[in-house]
């Protein structure tokens, strides 16, 4: 049995599947990264992705147009993020509670809508929804092993990798990125030079919602070709963890997302083996916990107690 597992892991197919399952995590992690930089990190990505996944399926099914499906998915996910902004930035509601509420709303709301549309509380298979195609990359697809790993992925997978670069560009090389970082770190400094803090935060949420929605759309129109109840399954949280592990830096976040993707793929492979599936399914989440513990203990300074308190107090107080 061990040999089976090892040969399953050390194969091009396994590496291919790591990239495949990393995609939604990467999207979400990048979205969380942008939001973290802009001081609007929240936990509603789960609901955002789920709504995007659902709206994408419905949009494409009724229009029979992939692009319309994509737009519908993005609109749904961004809508959740805008609600987040409205509650949190305008009504000053607690960010954690709002996040929980929106996630619950998305979970129940999608099932409700699914039942109305498909008369089914679990799956959207009765809808003729579309999916994004897989693409082969010329040249690379002919390289042995590497071609099998890197080529033939869903188009959104390539978009997610492109997003790593785009997010880097946005955050560190554009005036908007500078403002996002300034607002995230010291809102009063930003507003003192005339930056509209609330608007910048909404913009940040919009961008975060857009990126996370791509991950949601990928779930139901690439990774799978139908919408299933609660199909995001915690990826919205693992993405936040990956971003945290990557210290809100694009490249490091990418690597962290790959690590969680690896755990995810591992769990998928092991499920086909003769191992209790409950234990196997826990692997990505256990990996998340281990990752966060490792991260926290490596960054924790030697000093504890009162000294730590001091560091948390903002400069100048």
């Amino acid at each position, binding site marked *: 049995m061990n040999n089976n597992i090892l040969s399953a892991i050390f194969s091009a197919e396994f590496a291919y599947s790591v990239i495949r399952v990393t995609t939604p995590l990467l999207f979400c992690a990048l979205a969380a990264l942008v939001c973290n930089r802009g001081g609007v990190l929240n936990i509603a990505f789960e609901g955002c992705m789920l709504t995007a996944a659902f709206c994408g399926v419905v949009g494409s099914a009724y229009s029979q147009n992939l692009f319309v499906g994509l737009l519908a998915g993005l609109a749904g996910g961004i809508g959740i993020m805008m609600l987040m902004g409205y509650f949190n930035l305008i009504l000053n509601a607690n960010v954690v509670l709002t996040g929980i509420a929106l996630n619950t709303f998305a979970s129940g709301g999608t099932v409700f809508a699914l039942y109305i549309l498909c008369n089914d509380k679990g799956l959207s298979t009765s809808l003729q929804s579309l999916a994004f195609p897989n693409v082969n990359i010329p040249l690379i697809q002919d390289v042995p092993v590497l071609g099998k790993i890197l080529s033939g992925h869903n188009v959104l997978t390539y978009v997610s990798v492109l997003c790593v670069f785009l997010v880097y560009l946005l955050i560190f090389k554009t005036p908007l990125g*500078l403002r996002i970082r300034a607002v995230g770190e010291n809102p009063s400094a930003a507003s003192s030079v005339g930056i509209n803090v609330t608007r910048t935060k909404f913009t940040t949420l919009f961008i975060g919602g857009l990126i996370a929605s791509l991950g949601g759309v990928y779930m139901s129109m690439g990774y799978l070709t139908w919408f299933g109840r609660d199909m995001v399954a915690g990826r919205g949280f693992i993405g936040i963890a990956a971003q945290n592990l990557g210290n809100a830096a694009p490249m490091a976040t990418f690597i962290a997302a790959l690590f969680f993707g690896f755990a995810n793929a591992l769990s998928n492979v092991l499920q086909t083996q003769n191992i209790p599936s409950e234990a196997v399914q826990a692997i990505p989440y256990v990996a998340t916990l281990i990752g966060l513990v490792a991260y926290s203990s490596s960054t924790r300074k030697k000093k504890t107690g009162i000294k730590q308190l001091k560091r948390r107090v903002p400069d100048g107080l």
Partner: protein
Amino acid sequence: MDTVVLSMENITKVYSNGFVANKNVNFSVNEGEIHALVGENGAGKSTLMKVLFGVEKPDEGHILLHGKEIHIDNPIVAIKSGIGMVHQHFMLVPSLTVAENMVLGMEPKKKGLFSMEQAVKITEEAATKFHFQVDATARIEDLSVGKKQKIEILKALVRGARILILDEPTAVLTPQETKELFVELKNLRDEGLTVIFISHKLNEVTELCDRITVMRAGRTIGVQEVRNVSESDISRKMIGRDVQLNIQKSRAKPGDIVLNVKNVTKYSRTSAKKALDGISLRVRRGEILGIAGVEGNGQTELSESITGMDKEFEGSIQIGGMDVKNHSIRQAREHGLAHISEDRITYGIVGDGSIEENIISDRYYKPDFQKGPLLDLRKIDKLADELIGRFDIKCDGRDQPIKMLSGGNMQKVVVAREFTSGSSLIVANQPTRGIDVGASEFIRNKLVELRDQGAGVLLISADLNEVMELSDSLIVMSDGKIAAYFEDAAAVSTDELGEYMLGIRTMTPDKIRRVADND
């Protein structure tokens, strides 16, 4: 020659809670002058400046800039009208570079992307023009407080400020940095800019400023040429009575040793330097031992070590014979320690807590304040009311959140707690920093009173007048070491003290050792 560049006429501001912060205030400044705005906490200076900078809207009155009325509805309008403000809490983004902070909100672009090159250029040009020395590519978080302040000033200048408001700029600076700042401010004045300098420190006002406006209880009391007034004149105007600049106190009658610091060495957290280098001293009951010195020469580390907040040091510290290293802060407090921290907001108070809760935070667990498993609230209420009266805390009542109080009244709450815990050793670190003259005087007198009742006091202060007036004997700290010890603080001159503080002179180890002699 004296052109009025800005005048505020008949400004009245009533806050929504009915508090009249400004009442028919008239204030005007000339081109090319440094104008001091002084007054006790709560006198209305901050409100007036907030009105000028567009943070608060006045209920009455108007503002004239170059003779024309302008409406400053928000800080952006103020900035566009050439008014810049340097806040006490810096408006900088720590992880960004100096240049990025400088151009924030007006970022230079190249092909749609942010142009760091141009940002650096803008910064360097401004620095050259106004004679500031800055490193445009340094990160803010790596800079000293003094440097950060320069960046703040430059930031306002880059945005075209011709009138600069500085809100207690020297409160955070070392004497050297203050000197540098004054030179730069005078340069700006000579180039025709106007500086409004808000301060509590009268000696700085007389050194730096051309004219002075005094505010008291929401009104302007008068405008004068600084060279025509004395410090005691200003002080009398500010609080409406004579301040006793000399605390009356009898000779100390030292008793038993309550604090014994032996050979304490501590390494700095940020560098390989020794923050404390073989410090030995002792404090006896009934005396005040003052520690003078430029800030950052080990005073903070020493007070944190003594009060048990930082136990990573070599050597031994005993409070009333108890070793602080092996005991908790509560045990140290029960053994007679009282502590006024230099960082009031972080360690002195719980901002969201009420005055009452802050007062009992060191004693709530004692049987005295318990009734079965519950707190004896009636008793606690009584105590709070009594202390609010005794310590003259100006507030709406014991349930008011402490963060609503002015700095002076906040500190009075801290003092009300620390001075009534029946302690035998009081570590007072910058007890009167940033608070008004009246409250400072009150706290100083209390310290002397407690000394007379037999407590030992270790007083750490950057305010030379304060340490010299209050202390019975005096230490000067320089570079983590004791540079000088004066058995009789009254016999020391400021000049002498200054030389030891700046490390120009150091006493022989023999003389310094006397501070630790347990005779």
